[in-house]
């Protein structure tokens, strides 16, 4: 019974799915993508800061991204490079969805708003 409810919920959700129109903001990208996929466990959390990067809060993400994002230039941004290359691709445990990568690149293309603002 629960499985039927679950499948129905998925089916209903799929009915009005849209394309990638999510807000390309630092706050959204941090909370929806970087925190759940990159900063869990002991990777890019404030605790471990693997390679010096932490993405578990907006303030930490802002600081970390300043060194790996070139506004308006995804191809030169290390963030975009490590998410898309085949060797040493991030995240190590499970690649990001293409739609998430596109949103991050869109944010960079738009000048990476919020990257240099102080909280």
């Amino acid at each position: 019974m629960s499985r039927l409810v679950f499948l129905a919920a998925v089916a209903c959700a799929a009915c009005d799915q849209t394309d990638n129109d999510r807000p390309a903001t630092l706050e959204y990208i941090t909370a929806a993508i970087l925190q759940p996929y990159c900063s869990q466990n002991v990777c890019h959390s404030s605790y471990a800061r693997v390679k010096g990067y932490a993405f578990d809060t907006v303030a930490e993400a802002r600081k970390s991204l300043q060194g790996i994002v070139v506004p308006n230039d995804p191809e030169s941004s290390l963030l975009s490079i490590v998410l898309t290359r085949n060797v040493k691709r991030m995240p190590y445990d499970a690649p990001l969805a293409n739609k998430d990568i596109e949103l991050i690149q869109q944010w960079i293309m738009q000048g990476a708003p919020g990257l240099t603002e102080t909280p």
Partner: protein
Amino acid sequence: MKSAATGVAGATVVAAAIGVCSGTAAAYPQYQMSRDQTCTGCHISPAGGGLLRENGLAVAESTSQWGTAPEFFYGKVPTPSWLVLGGDLRGAMGYVKTPEELLAGFPMQIEAYGHATLPGGFSLYVDAGARESEVGKEGSTHAWSREHFLMWQQKPGDTTGLFLRAGRFMPVFGLRIAEHPTYIRKWGGTPLYGETYGLAVEYIAPKFELHATGFIKDPTIDTPEHNDGGAFLGEYRLNEKLSVGAEFMYTKSDFDKKFRGGGLVKAFLPAETLLMFEAQYVYQEIAPIGAPNQIVAGLVGSKFLGTAYMLDVGLNYFNENIRITKLNREALDVNLHWFTTSHLELILTTRVEMLAFGDGGKTSGYALGQLHYRL
């Protein structure tokens, strides 16, 4: 050339893989219904996992290939009746595809536990172990205590009744599957190292159990979860072979709020097969804009094969934003457990993970041999 590159990359990935794959010894909910009706039937903690009671030790012995004395250090280190000691050592090595193909090996857990019974129904539960140190505090953070709590029990020594806990522990929520990469843990509110400081009120009866926990983020160290909140889990056993549950969790961080609501079902089918299902609907509110709704679900079939083997087949589903296409991911897990002695478990754990059923990004996976030694 490929093997050389793989070797270098494999060495590089080890440190990262520790973060990816490290673990803690949690309970096997598969034992519930097939071996006992409640977690407290085998474990000291009402959440399950960690130290075993006498009945849990007996189950460890009877379900292993070669038995051996199940007590702490095979019973050769006697402890007074008020003190229970234990520990877990775990490590893994094998093949990882990320999508780069690598060989990796890494330690997962080095932890010791102690439970001291105090007068008046009180007891103290503490674990201590090694972990990756905190940046900037390397000298003082190689060791830590993931869980430490003071517990009061209405019926001291019993497996049922009212339990109150205060301290650092994982809020009781969901199926509490041991394997932390399962989506219902990873994105379901109880990720690895997601322990918080909290106060729990728990009631356990043969027919039902209730767990309510209020918690705050650890003020002393950074953890994966930067949330304050509350969690509730209620489980009702309709009969000896079927139970249903409801779960709710609210969390708030500096930049988002999440509300989770869901349910679970455990059905013990003929031929020693247990089916477990959990689904959560997650509403996430991100300041100052955006409110993605998510679905996290898991279906696990578990079957005991003879005395000492257990096979799990799990399906995982996570949709990080149900309004947007191709943001769903799926994983098929197959784990084979071999309980060799009362203390030593060998596990072959495998996963194939897809994004939008292969249409939303790179497919990944792993096949790891895991060793778990319980002191």
